[in-house]
């Protein structure tokens, strides 16, 4: 066969530019829709806030001005940072355990058969219901809060990693066998790159769950941001209450957005860059 018989033409520059313009147009349209929807939401909030009055719903202006300034001047910054510290410790431990465990569950049959029912059991257990038990074991200090974050963050990275690794079990495992790769080489060159997109999605979902765990833990033992939120709600300081909630959500969205960006980058390169050859 001659090479010309199936030569593919790389997209010409003009076609590429036209394609880029179409994409840009689509992106603009997407953001326009989003902006319109956002504006509608904010407007609805504002209308509702003015009708309900400040004891039930603060106005946007009051959240942005009173709430945010209150956050910085009323000593809420330290508990806020403390909460995120607890989150990062818990989340780091969760990942350090779940990713290797997920690899194990995806790679070998026996651990999968034995352990997977428990993993799924944990998923359907209302995690908040376990908290009194956790308090018995871990007290009410940082340890408790970290354990709660771990509990919340456990499932997604574990299951996604296991799924990602198991995906490589068929064809790509045959490939590494026929090329006589060592277990380690197969792992490094085939299994890990193939599983990486799955792992990243798991990490992203796990982070979102961890943020929930962070707030719920603090509401239980009344400390950190959870305590602040409880008190603010009790004393009807709703501008500051919403300001803090918005900050938590914004920070969580920012972090998951960053992870999403990494996913997209890797996806664009086929899947992930193994940097070999």
């Amino acid at each position, binding site marked *: *066969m*001659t*090479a010309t*018989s*199936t*030569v*593919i033409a790389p997209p010409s520059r003009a076609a590429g530019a036209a394609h880029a313009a179409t994409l840009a147009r689509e992106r603009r349209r997407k953001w326009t829709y989003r902006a319109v929807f956002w504006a509608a939401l904010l407007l609805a909030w504002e209308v509702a806030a003015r009708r309900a009055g400040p004891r039930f719903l603060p106005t946007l202006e009051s959240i942005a001005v009173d709430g945010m300034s209150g956050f910085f001047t009323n000593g809420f910054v330290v508990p806020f940072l403390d909460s995120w510290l607890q989150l990062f410790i818990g989340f780091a431990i969760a990942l350090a355990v779940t990713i290797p465990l997920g690899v194990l569950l995806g790679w070998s049959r026996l651990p999968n058969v034995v352990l997977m029912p428990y993993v799924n059991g944990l998923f359907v257990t209302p995690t908040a219901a376990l908290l009194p038990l956790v308090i018995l074991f871990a007290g009410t200090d940082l340890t408790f809060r970290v354990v709660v974050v771990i509990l919340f963050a456990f499932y997604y990275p574990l299951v996604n990693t296991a799924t990602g690794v198991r995906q490589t079990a068929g*064809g*790509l495992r*045959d*490939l590494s*066998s*026929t*090329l*006589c*790769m060592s277990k380690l*080489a197969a792992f490094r*060159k*085939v299994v890990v*790159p*193939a599983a990486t997109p799955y792992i990243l999605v798991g990490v992203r979902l796990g982070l979102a769950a961890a943020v929930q765990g962070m707030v719920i833990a603090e509401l239980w033992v009344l400390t950190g941001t959870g305590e602040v939120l409880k008190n603010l709600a009790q004393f009807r300081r709703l501008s500051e209450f919403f300001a803090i909630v918005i900050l938590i959500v914004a920070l969580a969205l920012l972090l998951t957005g960053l992870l999403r960006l990494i996913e997209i980058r*890797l996806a664009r*390169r*086929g*899947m*992930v*860059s*193994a940097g*070999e*050859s």
Partner: protein
Amino acid sequence: MTVSSATGGVETRGATDSRPYIDVRDVGMSFASKSDDVIIIDGLSFTVADGEFCSIVGPSGCGKSTALRIIDGLTPPTSGEVRVGARTVTGPSLDVGFVFQQYNLLPWRTVAGNVALSLESIGTPKKDRPGKAREWLDVVGLGHVADYYPSQISGGMQQRVGLARALALEPRVLLMDEPFGAVDAQTRLLMQEQLLQIWEQRACTVVFVTHDIEEALYLSDRVLVMAAKPGRMVADIEVSFPRPRAMSVRSDPGFVRMKDEIWDLLHPGHGA
């Protein structure tokens, strides 16, 4: 069982000799199911001579792909043994290249990077790998897409990358599992022709699994016909059209007659 060799024609490669290089001895494959044992392959025996191009045809489920996996060592047989050269097969070896039906390219590596995977396995020094990978891609006519990712090229091209990757091992034996099954009919013809050219230039023993009788006849020195339930061999047919073979051999009356004979073997009672 007869072991044939290509006869006549201009031989640009060493003529096959009749010494068996692959020796499949009474291989059986079965697994236990709820009711009883399911026999995939029953008492399969054949040999393939050094440098011979041998095809296995058969209906789906006759165990032809399993047989190929057993020869490679990817799947251990439940009984019998396979010898390749002086070695009794216990697992895959680097002197055997395998071309998969589903290509199995690594999507995160470039085309050249995929070929380099083989070079890494045989210990080619890192600095020589890009050049070597390029050479093997040139052999299959794909040097110009070396830096593309697999998702950017067609299925037929992806399979040629799979072939280049197997060739890069410089194997004594090439096992091909319905390699052209997923490509369109025209590309398939071109790829068959290219495969023959490549094989004729290399002293390489090929076992080629296909369900396409014409493909098997066009390519092979010998066609083994398998039947299903249980998978077993029903015929060992010598194909002695001169080489190099032109595409036009397909319309040769002898070729057509053999095609009909194999069809009858595969579908007794359903004339061609």
